[in-house]
């Protein structure tokens, strides 16, 4: 006789909660030593809900199916020289930034969930963290496989793990996750599952991956959406965690609010890089960063926070600043990279006239007034053979580690400077949000590994910038860095595409 098939709810119960056990000879508190020190109060772990009720057997089944589809596409992409079908070779630079900046975060997320999954005494939370941990490992692996094809044909992909640990702009994403992973387990979940996954990652994976498809990059679009299908589950988990913490004890509310405030701001700073990728690095545009922010944060996040209001949760601190920043942040970020293009492991460029017109149309209130004149000047300088690279090393914000290039949002001609004194030292910040985060936990942030400080302290080798870039960062100078115009990437692309050699190429360009 065949046993009756369990329904989804019963199966979930049997394969998660029923795998838990009681501690009779060991002290439960000693088994889960990190569960209480943050001040979060859990009265009943059994109230933890996983709305998708995914169990390990279904997990393996569906993940295996996703994987088979994904790798069939990678094979087809590679066999058909898919790299030749992207809109133009500038696009590939967005993928370089993705591999060096984002994929290592997937690995950090894998480590983070494996760690916190061990630290919760509730079986539901442990199983959810275990699955997410495996998901994140899958994401980093599929991303490496997808992008390995580009590594055969383009510069800048060769040493991404080494670069992630050292390069100045990659310390922005790296320190974001280091910050989350060195927090307690509940803060980690509010930081990554809720503030990052639920509120912000849609902005990275949805419009950007749709943009990859729109630029002929089948492999990236597919790994992006395949990862995002796990992300939908992670987001749901993020929302359930918040509801669970808020329903467990009223004392949790101010702690959760404090973490949401912190991680929302940390996340918006990290996403400045994505804003710049969308507005400047995709030759075929899907939507502007401002439009994406409106759909995926203001509308979707607005609905979310309205729903959470019944628990006493309010919109994150400094959200009104982000409403102004959406008009400026992508332009300011790309300008920082353009002017530091000799020190980046990807190429930068001046937007084409067509692209400048698109930006004017998408940002009618700010682009022509503040940003277009800069690009017109850059064009004139480039035409004179004086493509501008700044000689100075930038001052970094102690919290987000982005160079201090963002402006006051009420006066975009004035760079924003904030500072705090702690223990006899002065620390600098790009915004009220980053200063506020530092002021809450100065003991933590004084330990920040700020790449520019490290260079000046002599910890990165080299007597000059060129040596740091070449020997410490392992950049191939003259290949990975500098303007796209005149780069080996551009030359190869023109040869593959049968374009005139030397056309659009500044032959005399000096390569650091």
């Amino acid at each position: 006789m065949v046993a009756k098939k369990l329904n989804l709810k019963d199966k979930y119960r049997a394969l998660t909660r029923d795998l838990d056990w009681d501690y009779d000879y060991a002290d439960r508190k000693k088994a889960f030593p990190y569960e209480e020190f943050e001040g979060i109060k859990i009265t009943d772990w059994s109230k933890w809900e996983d709305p998708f009720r995914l169990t390990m057997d279904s997990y393996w089944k569906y993940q295996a199916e996703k994987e088979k589809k994904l790798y069939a596409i990678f094979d087809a992409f590679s066999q058909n020289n898919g790299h030749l079908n992207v809109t133009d070779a500038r696009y590939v630079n967005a993928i370089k930034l993705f591999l060096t900046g984002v994929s290592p975060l997937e690995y950090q997320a894998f480590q983070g969930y494996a760690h916190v999954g061990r630290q919760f005494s509730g079986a539901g939370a442990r199983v959810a963290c275990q699955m997410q941990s495996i998901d994140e490992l899958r994401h980093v692996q599929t991303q490496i496989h997808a992008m390995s094809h580009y590594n055969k044909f383009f510069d800048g992909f060769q040493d991404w793990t080494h670069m992630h640990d050292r390069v100045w702009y990659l310390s922005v994403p790296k320190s974001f996750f280091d910050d989350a992973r060195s927090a307690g387990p509940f803060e980690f979940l509010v930081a990554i599952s809720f503030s990052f996954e639920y509120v912000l990652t849609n902005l990275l994976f949805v419009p950007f991956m749709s943009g990859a498809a729109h630029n002929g990059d089948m492999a990236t679009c597919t790994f992006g959406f395949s990862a995002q299908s796990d992300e939908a589950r992670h987001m749901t988990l993020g929302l359930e965690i918040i509801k669970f913490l808020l329903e467990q004890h009223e004392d949790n509310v101010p702690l959760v609010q404090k973490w949401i405030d912190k991680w929302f701001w940390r996340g918006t700073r990290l996403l400045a890089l994505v804003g710049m990728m969308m507005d400047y690095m995709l030759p075929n545009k899907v939507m502007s960063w401002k439009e994406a922010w409106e759909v995926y944060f203001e509308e979707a996040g607005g609905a979310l926070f309205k729903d959470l209001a019944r628990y006493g949760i309010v919109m994150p601190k400094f959200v009104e600043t982000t409403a102004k920043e959406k008009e400026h942040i992508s332009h300011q970020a790309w300008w920082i990279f353009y002017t530091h293009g000799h020190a980046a492991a990807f190429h930068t460029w001046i937007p084409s006239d067509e692209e400048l017109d698109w930006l004017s149309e998408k940002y009618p209130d700010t682009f022509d007034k503040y940003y277009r004149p800069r690009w017109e000047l850059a064009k004139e300088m480039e035409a004179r053979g004086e493509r501008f690279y700044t000689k100075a090393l930038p001052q970094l914000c102690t919290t987000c580690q982005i160079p201090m290039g963002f402006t006051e949002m009420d006066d975009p001609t004035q760079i924003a400077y904030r500072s705090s004194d702690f223990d006899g030292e002065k620390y600098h910040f790009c915004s009220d949000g980053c200063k506020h985060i530092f002021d809450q936990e100065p003991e933590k942030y004084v330990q920040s590994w700020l790449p520019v400080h490290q260079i000046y302290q002599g910890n990165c080798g080299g007597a000059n910038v060129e040596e740091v870039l070449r020997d410490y960062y392992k950049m191939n100078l003259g290949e990975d860095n500098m303007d796209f115009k005149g780069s080996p990437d551009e030359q190869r692309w023109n040869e593959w595409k049968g374009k005139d050699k030397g056309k659009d190429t500044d032959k005399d360009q000096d390569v650091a």
Partner: protein
Amino acid sequence: MSKVYLALQDNDDSRYIVEAIIEDNPEATVIHQPAMIRIESTGELFVRRASVEEKIGRDWDMQELHLSLITLGGNVDEDEDRLHLSWNV
């Protein structure tokens, strides 16, 4: 009432899933974007197994939705027969 939404990869299975969703949720709006389909609706949205099976012409497990799902917004409640997305306000 806020909008709930889900986005699916633009693939062959999704075609039938979207057809089923539109039939079950006449209020829903369908937006086509490169490589994806976004479906949004005010307040709530249902994906029903029976309706998808009817369109796709075979047995279909609710959890197969994960193969095509890109993202969603709203409180989720799923069992063998349907996925329900909702906001309380």
